[in-house]
């Protein structure tokens, strides 16, 4: 085991740079992921969790930019890399899977071709050899009859199968880090279970570190060893998964857990308790929140910020 983190974010700010009043959406986020570790970022829409992930792989859409901070991958600052070096890094060392596999896959190419592309691009293989490797890659994500399925187009597959193909593409080059942004939100629960188990098994077997982004506390709890909770652009709590769920410290984390209807949380003879309302909690405890560097929530959030933040 090594003590050097695989990736380390130091005081990262993401926002729209401007000379007069720069707008920060992600504020002062620092965390690190060790090799082979699964780290979860949980938060509600607009909390900045997806932007944090995109900043890490340098895929922020203009005009959003990392305005401050360092993103160290194996000790090297990714912000200093040339565009070309970063492109080589993506898909090879750092891979990403998205929520909606249909839009992330090219509808005009067979899935085999799309997997093979990774070997051609990053491993310098010829197409012939790469397509043979694609069959193995499909088999590794437990797609039945991979020899036939390599010739299928994305629309011929179910949502769960498409997400498996995305995983095959992402893990094709044995990356050091897999970023999974809400990978199962669009799927049915039993399919979600299968896909999550697949990600966990494959990454554990290959020693791939995972950055899992989700709004679903259950998914994060099942997948990750450590969890960071994001709220309005800040990382408000970051601890081992068991500790966060057993003994949440930050008032927002407590609120989030109290707001969630959890299995087995209802007791008594049919009495239906009301869930914790985070907004009222926060309005009541303004001074406490000050301490935790909170900002009060607006009930109608600025639509421009929302649009940018939910990318």
């Amino acid at each position: 085991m090594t003590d050097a983190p695989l990736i380390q974010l130091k005081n990262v700010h993401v926002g729209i740079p401007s000379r007069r009043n720069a707008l920060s959406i992600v504020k002062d986020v620092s965390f690190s992921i060790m090799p082979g570790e699964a780290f979860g970022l949980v938060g509600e829409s607009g909390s900045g969790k997806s932007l944090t992930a995109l900043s890490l792989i340098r895929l922020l859409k203009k005009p959003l930019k990392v305005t401050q901070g360092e993103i160290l991958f194996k000790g090297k600052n990714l912000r200093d890399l040339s565009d070309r070096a970063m492109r080589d890094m993506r898909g090879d060392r750092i891979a990403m899977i998205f929520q909606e596999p249909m839009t992330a896959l090219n509808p005009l190419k067979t899935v085999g071709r799309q997997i093979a592309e990774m070997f051609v691009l990053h491993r310098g293989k010829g197409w012939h050899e790469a397509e043979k490797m694609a069959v193995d890659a499909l088999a590794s994500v437990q797609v039945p009859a991979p020899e036939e399925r390599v010739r299928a187009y994305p629309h011929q597959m179910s949502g769960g199968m498409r997400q498996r193909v995305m995983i095959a593409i992402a893990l094709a080059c044995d990356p050091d880090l897999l970023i999974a942004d809400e990978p199962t939100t669009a799927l049915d629960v039993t399919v979600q279970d299968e896909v999550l188990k697949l990600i966990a098994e494959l990454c554990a077997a290959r020693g791939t570190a995972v950055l899992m982004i989700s709004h679903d506390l259950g998914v994060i709890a099942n997948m990750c060893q450590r969890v960071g909770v994001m709220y309005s652009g800040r990382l408000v709590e970051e601890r081992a998964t068991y500790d966060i769920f057993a003994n949440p410290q930050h008032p927002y984390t407590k609120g989030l857990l109290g707001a969630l209807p959890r299995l087995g949380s209802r007791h008594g003879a049919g009495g239906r308790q009301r869930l914790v309302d985070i907004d009222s909690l926060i309005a009541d405890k303004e001074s406490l929140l000050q301490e935790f560097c909170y900002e009060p929530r607006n009930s109608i959030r600025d639509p421009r910020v929302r649009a940018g933040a939910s990318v």
Partner: protein
Amino acid sequence: MRGFNLNLWLGGFLTVLVIAGALFAPLIASFDPVFDANLMNSELPPDATFWFGTDAQGRDVFSRVLYGAQVSLTVGIVSQIINSVIGLSLGISAAYWGGWWDDLVNGLTNVMLAIPSLIFALAIMAILGPGLPSLLIALGLTNWSWTCRIARSSTLSLKAQNYVQAAQTLGYSDTRIMATQLLPNMVGPILVISTLGIGSAVLAEAALSFLGLGISPPFPSWGNMLTDARELIVIAPWAAVFPGLAIFVTVLGFNLLGDGLRDMLDPHMRTRSE
């Protein structure tokens, strides 16, 4: 801020110019377009009195172009309104109800698209005879297929929206749903296609009048002015050039306006608040 929408502004300017010319023709024109004929003044080139010159009968081409704009715009706008009403009611109802009605409307639309609309309009004019009312009917019945198609495809995507289902469960009748839930949500594309439609109706009016099937002389329309000027094209080219230019400016104006509207209403150009 987004880029400057040149099409919208230029198209809007040209359209307003033509509409203003038509509306204020009696105030702007210094001569009567029909009765101020004076053979002494025939075929004069443009000068300070006759800005666009005079035609074979000595009538002021400028005044006739202005009054011709009234005819062209009336035909363009009224026939497009008829087209829109037909296209919208057929398109929306076909997609909403589906079944044999949808098949029928679809078939009809395809037939309409296969026949050149000018030929179809010619046939209707041949039955109804020349004149403004038959011109409006002929052009109003022949150019609704694109409106119908757009209305149909918009309805197909809109009727899957939950608010349409909600309206059904709240007791709205089908026609009320079409009018209050579907129609308002397709205003954008329909406005674009209608603006383009006005341009093509102006062109079709000119063509029909040129063939002698439109407005009967001596009342001016751009089409019959071109017919009259045909024989003078060498000795008095202005008599043909200016009505031709008016057609060109009008059609260009409406087309640019349509393109501009499309750009403006395109959801990809708008910042979405969601």
